[in-house]
């Protein structure tokens, strides 16, 4: 079975020069956790995930582990300030440039193995040789496909 047969075609996307805050609102409204980021020509440039947005909001000095417990800091107000800053930035400055891409002709097993091996996101972007987005495959899509095949076999 090839990637094109079980991918979601025409997935939701965002543009690299949109404000993060607007895109995040759209993601919340549509229940999405990750969006492919495209340039004006439709080429894939990266992905914007709730995880990558959060990664920009939590300060590096906390992530470094040198200051783990800070019950004395006004954390809500500080994080709000960071959120306002990140929400005002363009997607290109916040997105993950590293993402998992697979070719339209790759097999189900190959895509499943690539997803497990990548480990960062649970989505693979199906991208053709010109860098254009053809569709998207999640770990859930693969499991759903396997379930359907199993039921059909019975």
């Amino acid at each position, binding site marked *: 079975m090839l990637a094109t047969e079980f991918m979601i075609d025409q997935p939701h996307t965002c543009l690299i020069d949109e404000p993060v805050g607007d895109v995040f609102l759209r993601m919340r409204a549509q229940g999405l956790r990750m969006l492919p980021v495209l340039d004006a020509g439709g080429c894939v440039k990266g992905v914007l995930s709730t995880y990558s947005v959060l990664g920009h909001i939590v300060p*590096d000095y906390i992530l470094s582990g*040198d*200051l783990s417990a800070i019950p004395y800091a*006004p954390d809500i107000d500080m994080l709000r300030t960071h959120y306002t800053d990140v929400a005002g930035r363009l997607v290109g400055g916040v997105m993950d440039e590293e993402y998992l891409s697979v070719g339209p002709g790759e097999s189900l097993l190959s895509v499943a193995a690539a997803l497990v091996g990548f480990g960062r996101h649970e989505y693979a972007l199906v991208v053709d040789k010109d860098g254009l987005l053809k569709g998207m495959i999640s770990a859930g899509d693969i499991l759903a496909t396997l379930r359907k095949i199993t039921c059909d076999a019975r």
Partner: protein
Amino acid sequence: MHGDSMVEPVVNHHVIFGLDPLWLAVSILLLVYAVVMMEKFNRAVLSLLGAGMMILGGVLTQQQAVAGVDFNTIGLLTGMMVIVAISQKTGMFQYVAIRAAKAVKGQPWGVLAMLATVTAVFSAFLDNVTTVLLIAPVTLLITDALGVRPYPYLFSQILASNIGGTATLIGDPPNIMIGSAAHLSFYDFLLHLTPIIPVIFLVTLLLIWMMFGRDLKASDEHRHLIMAFNENEAIKDHVLLKKCLLVLFLVIAGFTVAHQFHLEPASIAMTGAALLLLLQTWGKPLKDKDHAFEGIMAEVEWTTIFFFVGLFIVVTGVEHTGAIKWLADQTLAMTGGDFNATVAAVLWISAIASALIDNIPFVATMIPMIHDMGPSFGGEDMLMPLWWALALGACLGGNGSLIGASANLIVAGFAQRAGQPIPFLVFMKHAFGLMLISVAIAHVYIYLRYLI
């Protein structure tokens, strides 16, 4: 290392392969220094290897090597490390830092000045590395809340830690070594070094203001965030805090009167450490006591302690061969035996050297050299200005570059991990001139107080 344990140059006839002991000892010393500077291996391992080579090579016997270790320095360092390891668990450093920032109503320059002052004062009485390790993370939090770049704050804290550490016997390892070797008490340091430190600190702060101060601005919203910090939440253990403050008070009081009771600082620090270890887990089951004790022992910087042990033996080996006496004679010949010129040479050479290499091995080498100058200047009692020159030069010199002192590297490493790297050359461009000015102030002070 000590004046009373000085050994006349000896020719050891059992040196390995019949090598010249002088060249063997000097080669070992230079090899240890060079590899330590490369920072490819643990420095304690290197100094202990050097010590082993001194003994196995036949430069020293084991008895001579052990006699060369200054256990007063080792005891003082270990005792203070234990006290600091327990104290840092209370959250008092964070409490003071937040109180300081709130005291100036979150005004950016005021926060910088207050945090630098806190760092300097803590560094005067506690280990510099621990001080910056605890203050720097809170500084990033505070600068984040203020919406200002952290570099000027971290920069000022590096300088403040080295300046503050110069003020007392226990502030910086070179002072501990000098105090022990020259039999200078905590009170002597208070009397002779402490008075000039506020002057140097204020001038440095003024220059930092000229470099960065005018660009530090924060909105009212950001300043309100600082005022929203709750410093009381920073205190993790109120009971332990009281015990720590009591022991710290007793230890510092003990240091100031130790000389009158013929007590060495190591005895005070080790007793204080033992008392705090006892109080820390008072009333708890034996299992918890053992667990807490082992935890604190694991936090003592054994690398530094064993680095000192090895270094003392290596330098003693070189001292036994007469190389340091020769170096002292050469220095005196260079200065024409003029006392003022010798003091100036010790001060400035110490400062420049300490900016570029680890000041601990440098001071370990300089101590016997200054001892050897005693006879030329009328005895040990006349050497006081030289000891103060060495202390001021070695401690203040640490501000010259990022590798000048361990605390500098700790802050740089922390800033790097936090995504706010401090470039080596940028730091040096800002700091080297300030270091030279601070040494110049120290020079004027020594000249006015001791040389005219």
